[in-house]
């Protein structure tokens, strides 16, 4: 397993002393520590690594970084399976097992390729023009086929058991990018005393300085300066440097995401990914540039690569992608690659330069090295053999029709100039300007993303700002850093390093290389490799009226692949402009959206999965309930015992047992989740009169009153028993879900509307466990308690305070079951103790616990409403027959005015009624509707089999229902069958209420 394309020496990142074995499509290969999967495969002479999305054309590695459009693979299997990973970002590690994707049966013989033969039939947007008839064919025939062909990697099939972490972090300056500009900025910021975080997406600092190391900085060789600078920064304790960490997004007010991939190298890592949510005063984006490809006929065959990438592989990893390379460039940078290959002892077949008379130091150096330079020339077309580049044909820009020269080569290194990476500048609204001379979009200093103080919050440093040469990069980075710092009132003592670097001359871009013959029209000049978008596609979109850059993008899918157009956008926009006769500035650009590169869903979820996904609230008796067979009903975040199962009895059996227990002996219920709010102050009575529909100021101390609460729309929002503890102090009970909502509601009115009221509110829901004791044997139970309270003397809707079995309690004589009933409020710490005592006493009397479902049935038998069951946010107190609880005396209360509106006073509104099915054993389905000549006239709100009455009962909201007692109506069920039921009074049991008030 030799590595044919590994150079004999060179490769600053790899450790040749160690070998790493890895697999691609099941075949074993060797690489070295420091390799990426891409560099290792290139070293092994692997050219074909993927198939394209639409035409399934053979594709190879194009780049060396996050912009890679082609070289995507599946990694791992089962719980570790992960699709669509860029080979250029995978650090090689032992046992790495990668498989190519989007091919069948294998890369070399992919049957999808048949597409290409008919590819002329599939221009941009072809699917909008066909598959229209017959109507059902789209769902049943065309779409399924398209779905199977589309998509990239395989979907995972197993849950992921890796660990993901979050952290919040704060700093003065967040620097994105650890290249020379980032380092210069970091130095300046750290010496100004700023808190600095520097995030570098790769595993190394230095950026292009590691490759293009011919500059001298502060009189030292670039590499020496680099090592010294890094060491200096690492020594500063106000600087945090994170490698493998990408600044993925810069949101409003400088809330930034760092995506740290610390655990992606095979070993079982404690933390796979960590998502940093960083709030920083300023961002310095030193995010560099991305080289642009050149469009020419079949510029996608494996072996055609970015010139900078070819150079990276040579210098960083000691790999030459090809034996014979043709360099095709529109600027000086291509010459660097030619020279690098030449120095590495590889053949540079020729340098094709779009410029008429290329000049400048780099060009001279190439000439001096004896390299063949062909000015005013490009590649007319490339030709592949066995899925690999075999030859190219040159074209002269002045005589494109003339036959060109054929050159045999296995690698093309192309350079069409550079695009600054300004994503972070754009994420929160920064604008870009087209610089015609530099041939690139640069950040528009007049329109930066602005923070809450309207100051610029993102600053762009170095080549990301369009600086091409090291000296310019360093100077600009130092300047922009001190500008950012001075905004923060900081001054840096750092002086910009002096740099001597090779100068470069201008770029003459080629947006589409003319091709001889028919290729001129039918040619496949690829712009977006991954989505198979060609020059012809973009031109077609423009011709068809999809003129806006967004239309063209969406119509052709240009720039919508997983690389988000990092390579293709500018070339594509240029073609659009050419076709429309518009300048780049007129064409405009699409918006960069976060994240810069894709981030894992796992990292976004962090640790908040499983038990930590959302909190569950527990009462003091939670474990006791669990130990006694409770199954749970979620109420808000609470879990309440729905019923207590005995042995393997079914739900109904236990629920009915619990109901009858309360009717016939005595039951106890954990009511701790009820909201409890203290309202105190001289204006408390006045305040509560506003909050409740009924009068609370007239309530006597020591007495309880059931109260209803409206929202301003006049609809019921909550209910509960209000207790007046003393003249100034009230205790308001709310529904279980409602405590926090109602507490906030009280505070809102007190703080924002009636801030002159002298009222303080405290939410004491969590201070008390609440236990209901209900049933005819209730008094007997209480009588047997060791207590200083004379329960018999407590009147209905009265209260008492004292000690019960050693626990401090408040006892309220209120009933939600219709039985004689007391509710004990006891400090939560005593809750379990009192509960166990009461339970023992209840069992001794043949009673015991009951759950929420029994409670629901018992209250339904009594016709008591439950907010959220009988009401749904559109129901008034009058609708549910509780006009008695709506004060006519009070001038005003929340929702009073709303209840006067025409629709809320309609006589035919839905009103709460009871329903008795003609067949007493037939229980109406939940939510079933009453029907009259095909129209719904209302719906069932609660429906049960009543064990007390030994028949089904239901409550319903029926149009004008209260006037219709005795009428029989049809209830339709989903199963198309209708059930007959009689409308009646919703109070089914003990209408006079004698049992609760003995």
């Amino acid at each position, binding site marked *: 397993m030799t590595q044919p394309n590994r150079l004999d020496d060179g490769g600053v990142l790899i450790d040749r002393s160690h070998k790493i074995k890895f697999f691609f499509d099941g075949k074993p290969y060797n690489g070295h520590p420091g390799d990426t999967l891409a560099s290792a495969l290139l070293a092994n002479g692997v050219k074909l690594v993927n198939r394209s999305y639409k035409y399934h054309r053979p594709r190879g590695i194009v780049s060396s970084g996050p912009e890679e459009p082609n070289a995507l693979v599946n990694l791992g299997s089962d719980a570790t399976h992960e699709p669509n990973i860029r080979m250029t970002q995978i650090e090689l590690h032992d046992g790495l097992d990668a498989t190519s994707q989007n091919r069948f049966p294998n890369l070399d013989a992919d049957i999808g390729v048949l597409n290409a033969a008919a590819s002329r039939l599939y221009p941009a947007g072809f699917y909008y023009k066909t598959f229209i008839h017959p109507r059902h064919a789209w769902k049943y025939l065309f779409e399924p086929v398209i779905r199977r062909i589309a998509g990239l990697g395989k979907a995972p099939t197993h849950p992921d058991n890796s660990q993901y972490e979050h952290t*919040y972090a704060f700093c003065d300056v967040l620097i994105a990018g650890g290249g020379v500009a980032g380092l210069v900025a970091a130095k300046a910021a750290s010496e100004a005393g700023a808190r600095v975080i520097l995030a570098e997406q790769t595993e190394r600092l230095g950026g292009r300085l590691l490759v293009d190391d011919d500059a001298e900085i502060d009189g030292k060789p670039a590499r020496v300066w680099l090592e010294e600078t890094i060491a200096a920064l690492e020594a500063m304790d106000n600087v945090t440097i994170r490698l493998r960490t990408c600044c993925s997004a810069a*949101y*409003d*007010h*400088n*809330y930034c995401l760092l995506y740290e991939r610390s655990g992606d190298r095979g070993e079982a890592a404690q933390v796979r990914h960590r998502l940093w949510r960083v*709030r920083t005063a300023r961002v310095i984006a030193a995010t560099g540039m991305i080289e642009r490809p050149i469009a020419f006929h079949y510029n996608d065959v494996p072996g055609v690569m970015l010139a900078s990438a070819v150079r990276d592989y040579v210098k960083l990893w000691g790999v030459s992608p090809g034996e014979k390379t043709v360099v095709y460039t529109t600027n000086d940078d291509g010459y660097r690659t030619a020279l690098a290959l030449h120095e590495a002892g590889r053949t540079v077949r020729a340098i094709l330069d779009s410029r008429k008379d290329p000049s400048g130091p780099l060009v001279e150096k190439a000439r001096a090295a004896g390299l063949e330079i062909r000015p005013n020339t490009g590649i007319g077309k490339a030709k592949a053999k066995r899925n690999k580049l075999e030859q190219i044909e040159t074209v002269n820009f002045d005589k494109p029709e003339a036959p060109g020269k054929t050159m045999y080569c296995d690698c093309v290194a192309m350079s069409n100039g550079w695009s600054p990476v300004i994503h972070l500048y754009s994420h929160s*609204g920064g604008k870009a300007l087209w610089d015609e001379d530099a041939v690139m979009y640069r950040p528009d200093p007049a329109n930066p993303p*602005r923070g*809450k*103080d*309207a100051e610029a919050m993102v600053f762009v440093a170095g080549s990301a700002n369009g600086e091409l040469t090291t000296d310019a990069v360093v100077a600009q980075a130092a300047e922009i850093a001190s500008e950012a710092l001075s905004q923060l009132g900081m001054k840096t003592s750092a002086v910009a390093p002096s740099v001597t670097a090779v100068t470069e001359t201008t770029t003459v871009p080629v947006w589409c290389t003319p091709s001889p013959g028919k290729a001129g029209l039918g040619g496949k000049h690829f712009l977006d490799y991954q989505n198979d978008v060609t020059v012809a596609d973009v031109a077609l979109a423009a011709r068809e009226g999809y003129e806006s850059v967004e239309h063209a993008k969406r119509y052709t899918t240009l720039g919508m692949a997983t690389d988000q157009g990092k390579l293709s956008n500018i070339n594509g926009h240029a073609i659009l402009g050419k076709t429309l006769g518009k300048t780049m500035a007129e064409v405009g650009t699409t918006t960069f959206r976060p994240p810069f590169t894709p981030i894992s869903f796992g990292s976004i979820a962090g640790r908040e999965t499983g038990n930590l996904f959302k909190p569950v609230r527990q009462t003091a008796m939670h474990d006791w309930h669990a130990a006694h067979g409770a199954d749970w009903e979620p109420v808000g975040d609470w879990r309440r015992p729905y019923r207590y199962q005995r042995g393997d009895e079914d739900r109904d059996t236990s629920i009915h047992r619990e109901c009858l227990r309360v009717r016939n002996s005595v039951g106890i219920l954990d009511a701790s989740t009820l909201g409890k709010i203290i309202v105190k102050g001289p204006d408390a009575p006045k305040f509560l009169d506003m909050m409740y529909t009924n009068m609370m100021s007239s309530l006597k101390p020591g007495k309880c009153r059931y109260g209803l609460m409206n929202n*301003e*729309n006049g609809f019921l929002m909550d209910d509960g028993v209000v207790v007046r503890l003393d003249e100034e102090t009230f205790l308001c009970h709310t529904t279980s879900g409602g405590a926090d909502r109602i507490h*906030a509601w009280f*505070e*809102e009115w007190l*703080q*924002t*509307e009636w*801030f002159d009221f002298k009222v303080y509110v405290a939410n004491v829901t969590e201070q008390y466990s609440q236990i209901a004791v209900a049933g005819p044997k209730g008094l007997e139970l209480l009588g047997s308690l060791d207590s200083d309270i004379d329960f018999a003397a407590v009147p209905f809707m009265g209260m008492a305070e004292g000690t019960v079995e050693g626990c401090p309690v408040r006892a309220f004589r209120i009933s939600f079951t219709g039985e004689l009933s007391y509710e004990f409020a006891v400090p939560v710490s005593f809750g379990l103790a009192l509960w166990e005592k009461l339970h023992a006493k209840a069992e001794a009397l043949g009673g015991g616990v009951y759950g929420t479902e029994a409670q629901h049935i018992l209250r339904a038998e009594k016709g008591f409403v439950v907010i959220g069951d009988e009401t749904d946010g559109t129901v008034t107190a009058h609708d549910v027959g509780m006009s008695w609880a709506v004060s006519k005396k009070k*001038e*005003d209360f929340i929702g*009073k*005015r*709303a209840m*006067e*509106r*025409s629709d809320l006073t309609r006589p035919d509104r839905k009103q709460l009624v009871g329903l008795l099915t003609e067949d007493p054993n037939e229980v109406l389905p939940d939510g079933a509707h009453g029907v009259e000549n095909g129209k719904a006239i209302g719906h069932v709100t609660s429906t049960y089999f009543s064990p007390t009455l030994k028949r089904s009962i239901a409550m319903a909201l029926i149009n004008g229902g209260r006037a219709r007692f005795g009428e029989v109506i049809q209830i339709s069920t989903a199963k198309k069958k209708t059930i007959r039921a009689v409308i009646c009074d919703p109070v089914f049991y003990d209408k006079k209420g004698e049992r609760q008030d003995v």
Partner: protein
Amino acid sequence: MLLIDCPCCGVSGEETEFAAGGEAHIVRAGPGSSDADFASYLFDRKNPRGVHFERWRHAFGCGKWFHMVRSTQTLEVFGVYKADVTSPPQDILDRVEAARAEGRVK
């Protein structure tokens, strides 16, 4: 994601510590108001593309309601002030005017 200064406890906190409460300085219409005025109180909102006077609550913090003046266009914040007033303080209004003069907001 907004960074919000609570004028009550002085915290400069993440948006997720706060709860938005909609347009500020809406005068409550009660009994006696016309249907139109009442509907307007409940539902009509200025909803400007520009300077918005709004209510917030430091829900996970000191629990206090307060006012914030913010551009719904640029998210620039012109200031915060306590809840127990019926109109914004002058210095904030001045800042808004200045921003308008500079054409930063509508």
